């Protein structure tokens, strides 16, 4: 059993078996983060470039920690303070990074498809760390890992996802993943923030948060990006909270043992009440912990794939 591609560009192209392989490997790697010496020599001598063309703290630090715990050498490029903000094109940036012969490029970009573009032009394995409103595969994988950890299995669960569906790459990756592993997904959000035709992905759209939460095993709240306010999507943050905010009362509609997730960073009092975010059902900080193990698993498995690709090239005389 192995991954079919040496890149991780999205969940859409993965099979259920590949997803299970990544989650199983993450489970084996989680133990390393509990040791006194949190490091193994597995990726010694491999170079990882973290290319973040959009601000990110959580995802970047999580990747960095995963890289360090596997002993890879990593370097960070961010949009500000580098040639990326000086008008260099993506292909030129890619060629320059490629000239330094990294083994992996972890990429966050505001445009959907940017990592796919890089994958066509680079020898390195590309890991998509979020591209526009398209996919954020490692977030969906760490969400699935957390659900599996708390619920035992994913098949048969009812997962409610509430908030800004329109702009969320986390939602798209999660829908692909949860459907592949046999969960049912129900979405809810202001009509302006739920794209038309999203049902084609095999999900249902509930007209209100109450109906979405009814009987849910997992509640996934999405961040309302504050910069969206005043663009006509919803009248005010206060109104958003009153209609779609997760309050203790609304949590009561879900199953008694429901878990509450959020990809972070949270806006207290906008999409989630403080008492809920800090409450006993919240697994938001477990998600952060699990993110490191999941990203270690992705690096470990893709490193094997890259070797596979290279040795195949050598065999054919490259």
């Amino acid at each position, binding site marked *: 059993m192995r991954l079919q591609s040496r890149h991780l560009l999205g969940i859409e192209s993965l099979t259920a078996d590949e997803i299970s392989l990544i989650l199983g490997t993450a489970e084996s790697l989680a133990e390393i983060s509990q040791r006194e010496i949190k490091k193994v020599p*597995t990726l010694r001598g491999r170079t990882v470039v973290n290319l973040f063309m959009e601000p990110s703290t959580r995802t970047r630090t999580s990747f960095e920690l995963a890289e360090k715990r596997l002993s890879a050498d990593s370097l960070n490029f961010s949009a500000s303070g580098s040639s990326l903000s000086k008008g260099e094109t993506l292909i030129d940036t890619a060629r320059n990074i490629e000239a330094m012969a990294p083994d992996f490029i972890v990429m966050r970009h505001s445009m959907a498809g940017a990592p796919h573009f890089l994958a066509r032009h680079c020898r390195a394995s590309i890991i998509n760390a979020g591209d526009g409103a398209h996919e954020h595969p490692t977030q969906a994988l760490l969400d699935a890992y957390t659900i599996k950890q708390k619920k035992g299995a994913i098949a048969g669960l009812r997962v409610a996802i509430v908030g800004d569906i329109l702009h969320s790459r986390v939602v798209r990756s999660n829908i692909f993943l949860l459907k592949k592993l046999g969960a049912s997904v129900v979405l809810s959000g202001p009509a302006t923030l739920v794209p038309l035709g999203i049902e084609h992905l095999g999900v249902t759209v509930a007209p209100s948060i109450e109906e979405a939460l009814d009987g849910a095993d997992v509640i996934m709240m999405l961040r309302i990006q504050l910069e969206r306010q005043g663009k006509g999507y919803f009248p005010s943050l206060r109104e958003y909270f009153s209609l779609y905010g997760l309050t203790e009362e609304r949590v009561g509609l879900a199953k008694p043992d429901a878990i509450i997730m959020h990809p972070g960073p949270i806006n207290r009092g906008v999409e989630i009440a403080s008492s809920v975010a800090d409450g006993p059902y919240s697994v938001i900080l477990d998600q952060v912990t699990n993110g490191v193990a999941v990203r270690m698993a992705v690096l470990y498995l893709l490193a094997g794939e890259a070797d596979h690709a290279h040795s195949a090239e050598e065999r054919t005389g490259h």
Partner: protein
Amino acid sequence: MPAKGRIMDEATIDRTLTRIAHEILEKHRGCDGLVLVGIRTRGVPLARRLGEKIRKIEGCEVPVGLLDINLYRDDLTTISDHPILRKTEIPFPIDGQKVLLVDDVLFTGRTIRAALDGIIDLGRPRLIQLAVLIDRGHRELPIRADFVGKNVPTSLDEKVQVSLKEEDGVDSVDLVGMGAD
């Protein structure tokens, strides 16, 4: 793969493990400070069986841990896809303990080299020793076993196949040839 002959059957494996358990207790004068660590995959059931035998002979519980050495392999950059990673579970402190590594077959010694690195990343044991069911020779590193079930001279194109009930449903050790097919 053509079978070249049976090296051990169920009864022989059991007697051999009984003898090794006695040897361990004799050498360590009991089981004080002793911990067993089985190397995945087939070292794990062997370590559990040794632990059980020690308990029957001496009446003491020896902790048994499991070690996956894949993160410490020296061939990760040369083998094609990375091996399936399984859990390392050593839920007891090994600092100052006498760690007895257990594996089925000792061959090149590279697995044991990786296991030594894996153990040392988890703490500083007082000593590390090695028990194997079969030593088939052909070492590529300066490593030897402290407790050996049976020395089996082999050629490089042969393979020692250990089957254990817990993993394979049957207890046996066979010598098989790889050249013929």
